[in-house]
């Protein structure tokens, strides 16, 4: 009966392709009938016409939950295959689903490679579940990055709007690099991690060629996440009129991002910087790294999660993570990692001194806390001035709001 309904609805949609309500209705029936891939096709069409539709997005989540996303032929490893229908994305389920299969492809960039490559394809063992807090950021990454990567159909539809990449920014040590690695871990896609400081440092005068090659490798291993770390190193707005190597490198990067003379299909660019205001504005124009994502220091709950992550596997005893989280306001993820290190060290020193092995306890943490200060103060100062005085186009509104709340 359902099938007949679906048939007639399909006919109706074919004759009235612009009727989104009809199309979504059909899609929901398809989802219920367990025909996920067909549903995705319709929802994606609807989403393309109306990207903000909540109903369509929910349907998409459901449809993706039911459908094994067909792996693209060139994919080095099978993409995620969530087996249970679920609304939203279940990180833990994904983690167990992906299991051992995540193993990034090793790319060999031997083609006339001068010396050691400034980039390498990484073995990624981190998952988004390992990233503490940052719920909002994870959500946005899922919507704008992971979902399309997992679904080639979606990708085809959104191909145009996926042009360009996402720029993560925020204070140091708050998990930008960590997040990017986790994204790669989630996808099992090949992941090219390159610090632009290295591109410049290693081959001054040749960085241009390196950038070109980097993208070639990325394209040849599509689908691939290309992570450009420390983007500000490549030349800020002030080096615009400098006749340095940075300028030509920026130009090459622009060319590559625009996909001029080549197709960037399947190459997803993720970039990170602590100083987005130092990034060449040309790099941030539409179609390039135009979407930004602010990665902030962890809030209290997130700090607790981060602490728990870092304490996992350590010999700890009666640690009140909640109290610690409360006492570490303003700490970055890296600061928290450092705190755990120091506490362990305290316990170790003590054990060595007394000759008696003991667990890491709260006293170790208190001692470590007394010596630690949050490290993001200078960044905050800089960011505050930018948000106050140089936010003409409103691009740092979210930063400004956050800074105001912290006062």
């Amino acid at each position, binding site marked *: 009966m359902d099938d007949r309904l679906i048939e007639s609805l399909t006919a109706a949609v074919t004759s009235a392709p612009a009727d989104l309500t009809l199309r979504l209705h059909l899609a929901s029936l398809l989802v219920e009938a367990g025909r996920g891939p067909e549903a995705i096709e319709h929802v994606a069409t609807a989403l393309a016409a109306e990207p903000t539709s909540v109903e369509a997005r929910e349907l998409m989540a459901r449809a993706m939950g039911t459908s094994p996303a067909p792996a693209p032929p060139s994919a080095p490893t099978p993409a995620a295959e969530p087996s249970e229908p679920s609304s939203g994305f279940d990180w833990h389920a994904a983690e167990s689903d992906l299991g051992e299969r995540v193993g990034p492809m090793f790319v060999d960039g031997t083609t006339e490679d001068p010396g050691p490559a400034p980039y390498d394809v990484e073995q990624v063992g981190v998952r988004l579940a390992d990233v503490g807090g940052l719920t909002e950021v994870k959500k946005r990454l899922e919507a704008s990055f992971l979902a399309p990567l997992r679904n080639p159909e979606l990708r085809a539809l959104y191909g145009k709007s996926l042009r360009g990449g996402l720029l993560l920014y925020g204070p140091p040590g708050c998990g930008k690099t960590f997040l990017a690695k986790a994204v790669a871990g989630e996808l099992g896609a090949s992941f090219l991690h390159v610090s632009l*400081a290295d591109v*410049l*440092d290693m081959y*001054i005068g040749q960085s241009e060629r390196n950038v070109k090659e980097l993208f070639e490798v990325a394209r040849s291993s599509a689908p691939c996440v290309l992570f450009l770390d420390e983007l*500000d*190193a490549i*030349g*800020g*707005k*002030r*080096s*615009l*009129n*400098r006749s*340095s190597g*940075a300028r030509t490198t920026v130009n090459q990067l622009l060319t590559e991002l625009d996909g001029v003379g080549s197709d960037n299909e399947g190459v997803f660019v993720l970039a990170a910087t602590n*100083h987005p*205001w*130092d990034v060449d504005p040309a790099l941030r124009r539409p179609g390039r790294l135009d979407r930004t994502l602010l990665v902030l220091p962890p809030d209290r709950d997130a700090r607790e999660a981060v602490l728990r992550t870092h304490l996992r596997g350590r010999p700890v005893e009666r640690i009140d993570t909640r109290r610690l989280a409360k006492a570490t306001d303003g700490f970055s993820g890296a600061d928290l990692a450092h705190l755990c290190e120091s506490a362990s060290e305290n316990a170790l020193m003590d054990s060595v001194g007394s000759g008696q092995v003991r667990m890491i306890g709260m006293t170790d943490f208190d001692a470590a806390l007394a010596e630690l200060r949050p490290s993001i103060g*200078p960044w905050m100062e*800089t960011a505050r*001035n*930018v*948000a*106050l*005085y*140089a*936010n*003409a186009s*409103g691009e740092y509104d979210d930063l*400004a709001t956050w800074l*105001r709340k912290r006062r």
Partner: protein
Amino acid sequence: MSDVDHLLERASALLELGRPADAEHAALEALAADPTSAPAFVVLTRALDGQRRFDEAVGAGRSAVAADPDLADAYVALAWALVGDGRADDAVAVAGSAVALEPHEPACHHALGWALLSSSPPRHQEAHDAAARAIELEPGATPAYSVLGLALAGLGRRREGRKVLREGLRINPHDPYLHNNLAKIDLDRGLRIGRTGRHLSAAAGAIPQEPVVHRNLDTLLVRFAMRLVWPTLVALSVLRLQVALDAPWWSRAVTGAVYAGLAGLMVAWFSRQVPRGLRFWARGVLARVALPVRLIALAMLAFAACVVATAFAPTSLAAVTEQAAGVLLRLAFVLAAVLLVAHLVQRRRHRRG
């Protein structure tokens, strides 16, 4: 390329990005690799200078000079550090050595010009000559236009000064210092609030970390607030008349509403001339300005509050607030007059001294 060159290149790039703390780090690494490297000391000097740690910068600059007494760059860096440290007279001598070493290097003349301009009393004419020489050697060096423009303004040739700065902006429309200094020339005279605001916006957008620009914006804000005195005065005289004539309460309310609307329009206009988010960056301005200015501003605020109260209060109260407004206004004027006289006396002493 050696490790040290490499680190220095990176440090210089970081300096240009306006990240002196990171640059300092790279420079120190370079020094760790080669503790006798004069160029490394030069970069370190500039990095410390950029963090306003002038005392340390002077030390690093002296080390640079000691490491290579023939390196003009070292003298230039030291001169800038000395100026920052408030020892412009020493800086003049040091920059002079740089010029002697490299008479064809515009950066040396530029540093000399700035040192001369910063010495007290400022040696405007010599600064003018040094900056002119720098520009002659390198017509595209816009920072020297700033020195030349300010020197001209200091010589009383403000029009020419402005012209030079605008010329610099034609060469590099984004040079934030030119924008700031154009604004500064206007600010000193208290003219053209809108134009000054636009220049300061451009400067703040490019160098949001520069405290000089923040200060200039604060000054501009105070200047603008003083402009609001005129409509307040007019409102007060109308209200006085209305109180004297025992006009109905609503006529005073109308006066008050018109006044408030006008003031609102002025503020709206002003907020479009200055960096976006006026209410955020302007917060706490009274705590940042000098004490005398703060006093005058507070008196003026109280004055405006009394005028508003006169507009909307019942008749009996209005008579009182109207009187109070008059008193406060006079108080502010007296304060301003005293301060002006003090300022003039001090300046004259300065000239003689």
